[in-house]
C-alpha cells in the first residue's frame, strides 16, 4: 500500500509548475454537439508554438505572458478558425471551433493539413483513418468497413479476400491489438470475418500504429489500432442510420442533461437469414451488435465515460423435430462483450489524467443435438484491467506521458460436454482455466530540441505473471525527427515490443473460433525489435503529401505448430507449440491528398518476410504465409458536386504463399488392412498464388439540402470486383473436360452489386 502511495505521489506530483508563464489549456469542442475534437492542432500565433489535442480532446500549452494571443485551431473535419485571448493570465476553458454558419464572422484558414502535421511531429508509421472518407468508399454489399479501409494502407497486408484478419509489416495475425475505447476486441470480425464488428456510425477516430509505438501501448508486436467512439451530442437529439444489402443500422445520440451529459446508442443487425427465407431457403445465420456510451461532465475538470460494445454471430440450424431419434440441431454463438469506464481529470492546467477500468470478453459456444445425443463446446477469454495514464504538458516544447496498467487475462479454452456415443469421439474436458496478470509501467517524453530537431523517447516495463514464473521485459521506444525545411522531414524510430499471449490458428486458415492462449513456463513471450526510417514531403500546392518509409523488424519466440498437429479441440496445445524467429523488411510509399474535389491515396508496399524454426522445413528459413512481395492500392473519391460523388478502389497484390501437395504415395494403414494416400508437400510456403487485383466503385447521391430541414439522406450504388476477377484463397485439384487434372485457384467473391441508403436527422 505504501509503495502504491509513493507511486501515486510520483505520478501526480509531476503537476507542479512555475507561475512565470501562462498556461492556455482546455478541451476543444464542436460547438453544435459539444463533442471533443481529437488530434486537432492548436497554434499560438505570437509564440509560434503549437500542440495537438490529445486522445481525449484536451490540450495545454505554456507561453510567456503577453497582452494578447491569437489561437488557431485546425482539424481535418473543421476549417481552421482563430480566436484572440488575453495573454497575461492562465486560461483553462472549453474552446469551440467554428461551424460553417459561423465562419463568416471569423478568420477562415485552411483545414488542418495532415501533410504539414507530419513535418512537425515525431510520429513514424502512424496512420489516421478519415472516417468520413472511409464511409464514401466502395465496400462488399455496400457495408462500410473501416478495417478493410485500413487494409488499403501501405504496410498492412490482408489475409483471405474479404476477411478482417490482417498482417502488419511481416507480423502474424495475432500480433495486432485492437482497442475500442481502451477495451481489447479479440475477434474483430462478423460473419466468419467478412465484416468488421465496428459500426461506422459510432467511430470518431481510428489510429493505427505500425511502428514507432508510443510507450503507453503494449501487449502486441506488430500493430495497435486505437478506435475512439463518439461521445454523444450534448445539445440535441440526432438519428443516423442506414439500410444496406446485408445489414441495417441505427444510431441515436442526444443529451441526457443539456450541456452536461449525453448518450449514444447504436445497433446493427444482418438479415441474410430473413432475405433467404423470403426466397424459400433457410440460412439461419445472422449477426447483431450494440454500442452504447454515456458521457457525463461531472465538473469543469472531471468527465466520466461509460462505454460498451456487445455483439454476437448466431447460427441456428434446426433439423426435424418429429422424429426424436433422427432429429438434428446445431448452433453456435460467438461474440465480444466489452465495457470501459473512464474518468478524466484535469489536476491542474498542465496535468491531465485518465483512469480506465476495462472488462472485455470473447467467447463462443457450439451446441449440437443428434437425436438423444448432445454436444456442447465452450471457450472464452476474458480480461479485467485498469490503467492510469497521465499527460504532463511541461511547456510548449516538452510533454511527459507516464502511467501504469494492469490486466488479468483469463483463458478457458475448449470446455467440452458430450453425452452417449459422442463422448467416444469427443472426450469431456473441463477446459482448464488459465489466468495471467500483465502489467506495464511506462514513461515517455516528447521534446522539441530546436526548430529542426524533435525527439520522443520512452521506456516501458512490461511484465507477465503466470503460475510459477514471471516474465519481465524492458521495452525502449524512441522517435527522432529532423525538419529539413517547412515541407520536408526525415525521421527515425526504434521500438521493442513484447507479447504475452498468442492465438492458435492453423497455417492454412484462420477461423473466428481460433483460441487465445497465454505464455507458459515453456512458451516464452514473443519479442519484436523494429527500426523504421521515414521521409515526409508535404506539397501544399497540390494539397498532398508523400510518406516514404523503410523498416526492418526482427521477431523472437514466434509460435508455430509442430508438423501434423491436430489443433481443433486440442487442450494439450502446449506440446504442439514450437518457437522460432522471423524477420521482415520493406519499404512503403504513400501519396495522399486530403483536400479538394479529388481526394484519396496511392499506396505501395514492397516487403520480404521470413521465418525460421528448427523443427520446420528441415531447420531452413522459409517465407511467411503472408509474405506478399508487392501491394499496390489506388483509392480515390471525386466530389462531382455537393450532391454527387464517385469513389473507386483498385488494388493489386502478390498472392499469398502456400505449400502445395506435389506428390502422393500409398502406404498400408497401421493394421495393414487397407491403404492410405500419403501426401508429399513442397518446401514450406514455396509457392505463390496468382496476383490478385480488383476494382470496386461507388456512387453517392445525396438529398437536396433544404434550409431549416434537419433530415438528409444519401444513396450508395456500387459494385465490388467490377471485372469479376478471382482473388485466389486456396488451391484445388480439379478435373478437366478431357479427364486430366489441373491445379486451380478459386476466388471467394466475384462481381457483387450493392445498394444502400443512409439517413440522418
Amino acid at each position: 500500500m505504501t509503495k502504491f502511495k509513493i507511486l501515486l505521489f510520483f505520478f501526480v506530483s509531476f503537476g507542479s509548475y512555475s507561475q512565470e508563464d501562462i498556461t492556455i489549456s482546455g478541451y476543444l469542442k464542436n460547438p453544435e454537439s459539444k463533442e471533443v475534437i481529437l488530434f486537432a492542432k492548436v497554434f499560438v500565433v505570437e509564440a509560434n508554438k503549437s500542440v495537438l489535442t490529445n486522445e481525449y480532446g484536451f490540450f495545454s500549452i505554456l507561453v510567456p505572458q503577453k497582452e494578447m494571443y491569437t489561437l488557431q485551431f485546425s482539424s481535418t473535419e473543421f476549417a481552421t478558425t482563430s480566436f484572440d485571448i488575453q495573454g497575461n493570465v492562465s486560461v483553462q476553458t472549453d474552446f469551440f471551433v467554428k461551424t460553417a454558419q459561423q465562419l463568416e464572422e471569423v478568420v477562415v484558414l485552411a483545414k488542418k493539413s495532415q501533410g504539414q502535421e507530419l513535418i512537425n511531429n515525431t510520429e513514424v508509421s502512424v496512420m489516421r483513418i478519415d472516417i468520413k472518407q472511409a464511409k464514401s468508399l466502395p465496400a462488399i454489399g455496400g457495408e462500410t468497413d473501416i478495417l478493410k479501409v485500413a487494409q488499403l494502407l501501405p504496410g498492412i497486408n490482408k489475409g483471405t479476400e474479404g476477411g478482417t484478419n490482417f498482417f502488419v509489416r511481416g507480423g502474424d495475425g495475432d500480433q495486432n491489438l485492437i482497442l475500442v475505447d481502451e477495451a481489447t476486441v479479440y475477434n474483430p470480425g462478423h460473419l466468419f470475418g467478412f465484416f468488421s464488428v465496428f459500426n461506422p456510425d459510432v467511430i470518431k477516430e481510428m489510429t493505427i500504429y505500425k511502428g514507432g509505438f508510443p510507450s503507453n501501448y503494449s501487449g502486441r508486436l506488430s500493430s495497435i489500432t486505437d478506435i475512439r467512439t463518439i461521445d454523444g451530442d450534448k445539445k440535441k437529439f440526432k438519428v443516423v442510420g442506414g439500410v444496406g444489402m446485408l445489414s441495417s443500422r441505427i444510431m441515436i445520440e442526444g443529451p441526457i442533461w443539456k450541456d452536461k451529459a449525453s448518450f449514444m446508442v447504436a445497433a446493427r443487425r444482418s438479415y441474410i437469414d430473413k432475405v433467404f427465407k423470403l426466397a424459400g431457403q433457410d440460412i439461419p445465420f445472422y449477426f447483431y451488435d450494440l454500442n452504447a456510451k454515456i458521457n457525463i461532465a461531472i465538473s469543469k475538470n472531471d468527465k466520466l465515460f461509460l462505454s460498451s460494445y456487445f455483439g454476437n454471430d448466431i447460427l441456428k440450424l434446426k433439423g426435424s423435430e418429429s422424429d426424436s431419434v433422427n432429429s438434428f440441431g446445431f448452433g453456435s454463438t460467438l461474440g465480444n462483450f466489452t465495457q470501459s469506464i473512464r474518468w478524466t481529470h484535469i489536476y491542474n492546467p498542465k496535468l491531465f489524467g485518465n483512469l480506465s477500468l476495462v472488462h472485455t470478453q470473447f467467447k463462443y459456444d457450439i451446441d449440437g443435438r443428434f437425436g438423444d445425443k448432445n454436444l456442447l463446446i465452450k471457450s472464452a477469454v476474458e480480461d479485467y484491467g485498469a490503467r492510469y495514464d497521465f499527460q504532463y504538458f511541461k511547456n510548449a516544447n516538452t510533454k511527459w506521458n507516464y502511467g501504469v496498467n494492469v490486466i488479468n487475462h483469463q483463458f478457458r479454452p475448449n470446455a467440452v460436454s458430450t453425452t452417449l456415443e459422442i463422448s467416444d469421439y469427443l472426450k469431456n474436458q473441463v477446459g482448464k482455466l488459465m489466468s495471467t496478470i500483465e502489467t506495464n509501467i511506462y514513461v515517455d517524453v516528447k521534446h522539441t530540441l530546436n526548430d529542426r530537431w524533435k525527439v520522443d523517447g520512452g521506456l516501458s516495463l512490461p511484465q507477465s505473471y503466470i503460475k510459477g514464473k514471471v516474465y519481465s521485459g524492458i521495452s525502449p521506444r524512441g522517435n527522432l525527427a529532423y525538419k529539413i525545411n517547412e515541407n520536408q522531414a526525415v525521421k527515425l524510430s526504434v521500438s521493442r515490443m513484447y507479447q504475452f499471449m498468442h492465438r492458435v490458428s492453423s497455417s492454412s486458415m484462420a477461423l473466428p473460433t481460433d483460441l487465445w492462449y497465454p505464455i507458459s513456463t515453456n512458451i516464452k513471450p514473443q519479442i519484436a525489435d523494429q527500426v523504421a526510417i521515414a521521409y515526409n514531403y508535404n506539397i501544399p500546392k497540390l494539397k498532398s503529401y508523400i510518406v516514404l518509409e523503410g523498416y526492418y523488424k526482427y521477431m523472437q519466440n514466434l509460435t508455430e505448430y509442430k508438423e501434423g498437429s491436430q489443433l481443433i479441440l486440442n487442450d494439450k496445445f502446449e506440446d504442439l507449440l514450437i518457437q522460432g524467429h522471423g524477420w521482415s523488411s520493406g519499404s512503403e510509399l504513400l501519396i495522399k491528398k486530403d483536400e479538394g474535389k479529388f481526394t484519396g491515396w496511392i499506396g505501395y508496399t514492397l516487403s520480404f518476410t521470413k521465418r525460421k524454426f528448427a523443427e520446420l522445413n528441415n531447420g531452413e528459413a522459409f517465407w511467411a504465409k503472408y509474405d506478399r512481395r508487392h501491394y499496390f492500392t489506388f483509392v480515390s473519391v471525386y466530389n462531382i458536386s455537393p450532391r454527387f460523388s464517385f469513389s473507386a478502389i483498385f488494388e493489386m497484390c502478390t498472392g499469398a504463399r502456400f505449400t502445395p501437395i506435389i506428390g502422393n504415395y500409398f502406404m498400408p494403414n497401421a493394421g495393414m488392412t487397407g491403404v492410405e494416400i500419403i501426401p508429399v508437400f513442397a518446401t514450406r510456403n514455396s509457392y505463390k498464388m496468382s496476383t490478385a487485383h480488383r476494382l470496386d466503385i461507388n456512387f453517392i447521391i445525396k438529398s437536396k439540402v433544404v434550409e431549416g430541414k434537419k433530415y438528409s439522406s444519401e444513396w450508395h450504388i456500387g459494385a465490388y470486383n467490377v471485372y469479376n476477377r478471382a482473388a485466389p484463397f486456396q488451391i484445388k485439384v480439379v478435373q478437366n473436360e478431357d479427364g486430366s487434372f489441373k491445379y486451380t485457384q478459386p476466388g471467394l467473391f466475384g462481381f457483387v452489386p450493392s445498394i444502400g441508403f443512409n439517413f440522418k436527422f
Partner: protein
Amino acid sequence: MKSVKYFLFVFSIVISALFSCRPKPIDIEVKPGDVKLVVFTQVIPNNVMIVTLTRSFSPLSGNTSDNLSSLLVSGATVQIKSNNQTYDCFESSPGIYISVATSSFVEGQEYELIAISGTDTVTSTSKMLPKVDFTTVLPSVEKNIGDTNVFVSFNFNDIASVSNWYLVNFYKKQANVGGIDGSNYFQNGSNSLIRSILLSDKEFNGVYHAKVELDSLKWNDSIVVTLSNIDEKYFNFLGFREGKGGVLSQMNIEPLSYPTNIKNGYGFFNTFYPDIKFFDLSQY
C-alpha cells in the same frame, strides 16, 4: 406495404446475384515432385520379410486406391544385406518381393535394404527390434439384450534402459466368416482393423496395463490382438496419420513432411515382429 414488398423482391434478386457471380478460378502451374520408389516391409513370424514396392504419383494423375496395382513396381532388384551376406528377394506377385532365403532375423542386428528399379535406387538400414510379447491378453464379453459389449484387458512389460514405441492393433474377423484364418492374416480384407493404440514408454512406467472397449462386435465374432515394438520414425508416421480422415482435420491441414527411413524414396523398412493373439469371442 407494396413498396416494401417490391424492395424485398429487388433485395432477394441482388442477394442472389451476390452469391451467384462466382469468379472463374485461375489456373496455376505447380511443378510435380519427382516420382520416387515407395517401400514398405513387414517381417512375418516365420522369418520371412515381405517387401512391397510401389511408386509415388502426381496429384494430377487422378490415382485412387482402386488403381494401386498400376503403381506396383515389377522387375525390380530387391536385396537384404546383413552380416556381409546378401539375400535376394523374389517377386511373388507384381510389386511384392519375399526374402525366403533369409536365415533368421536376429534381434539387435542391423539390416540393409536395397531396391533398384531402372535408374532408381533406394536404400535403408534398420536394426531388428526385440519382440515384446503380451504378458496377458484377455477378452471379456458382456451380453445384453440387443447389445454386446466386448472388452480386452492386456498388459506387457516395457524393455528397460532403452526408449521404446509400441503399436497395439485390434482386428475383427469379417462378417459371416467363422473363426480366424491365421494364414492370410496379412492379406487385405481378411480382417478389418477396429482399433489401434500407439504408445510411447514415456507414458507409463515399466508395465502397461489397459482395458479397452471394442465397438461393433457380436458375441460370436473373432478378434485378433497384436503387439509390435516399432521404430520411433514409424511411430511418428502413424501418429501423424491418426485422425487425418476427419472433416475437422481436413479443414485444418498443416503441411507435413512425413517421416521415412528410406533414402531417395518414401516408406518404411520395418524390422519388427508382432506378437499375435487370436480369440474366438464365443469362448468367452
